[in-house]
């Protein structure tokens, strides 16, 4: 083993003692597999104000709500995410064909009422990640990709 390899090996041993990944991270990564939704269509993240603002120094931008859009070819949702005391609050509007929705985190799921204009809201989502489920008039289920909040 070269001297450089020995240094890397020492660093590896030091890192495993000084800064190992938390055990809970392995547990949540394994549990992620149980959240597979092969029954549903996946709605991609089409827009995220947090990403589009990359490199821009905010003029009070830190207080502006985050806006994210998800969509398949014909079903989607626009969501405003605001920091709240216990996680975040959501306000959104979805395609006219959506009749019901739910917001899911790895450890929770809350059904959301969708009004006749496609609007929905949820006052408290715990995080740190969430996705939406959208149910259409024709019985399709769409889930959005996970986003970190």
């Amino acid at each position, binding site marked *: 083993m070269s001297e450089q390899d020995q240094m890397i090996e020492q*660093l590896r041993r*030091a890192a495993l003692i000084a800064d190992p990944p938390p055990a809970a*991270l392995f547990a949540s990564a394994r549990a992620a*597999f149980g959240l597979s939704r092969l029954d549903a269509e996946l709605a991609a993240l089409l827009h995220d104000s947090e990403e589009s603002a990359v490199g821009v120094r905010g003029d009070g931008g830190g207080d502006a709500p985050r806006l994210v859009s998800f969509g398949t070819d014909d079903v989607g949702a626009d969501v405003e995410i605001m920091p709240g005391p216990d996680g975040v609050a959501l306000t959104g509007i979805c395609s006219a064909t959506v009749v019901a929705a739910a917001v899911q985190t*790895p450890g929770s799921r809350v059904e959301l009422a969708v009004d006749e204009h496609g609007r929905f809201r949820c006052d408290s989502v715990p995080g*740190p990640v969430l996705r939406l489920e959208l149910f259409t008039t024709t019985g399709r289920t769409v889930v959005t990709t*996970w986003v*970190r909040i």
Partner: protein
Amino acid sequence: MSHPGPRDGDLTVLVKSAGAGDQDAWDELVGRYTNLLWSVARGYRLEQGEAADVVQVAWLRLVEHLPRVRDPERIGGWLVTTVRRECLQVINARRRRGLPVDDKVLAAIPDHGAPIDSELLAREELADMWRAFESVPPRCQRLLRMLMADPAPSYQDVAVALDMPVGSIGPTRARCLGHLRTLLEPGGQPLEAPDE
């Protein structure tokens, strides 16, 4: 300790088995890459909680992505790219909130997530090594954090995560270890003071 690299040839089998619903195969993937992903996130100086969140979102996204994986051998690159993108988003959000993000400023912030605990780091040699590691320039920290992951990553995955050519990893590694060696010498000082 053996370090079965991600290029052992059975990655394709693992990814396909996981895609077919095999939890054991998934767990094996988690065991292989979580250390590396953690190293990437911590290399970007994310706090422990933030680092855990970005790694978790990468695994959740891979669950979604499994049915569409075309090249299973590149799954490591896909994961580190996802983590890197999320890290940059965290850093960008900090910037918008007016929090410091400059590399040198970040390097000057004490990293509470990695305490030098004399009991934990029973071997003084390792403690010295870690202290020296925390004093090398941030770019070196990012590279070395990845290279020290267990199991060791492929240079391909490192190149993707750090957005650098594969060919420059070896020379950069040598230069960064040179920094480290200087710091480990008696009276060694950082070559690039973090608060300059």
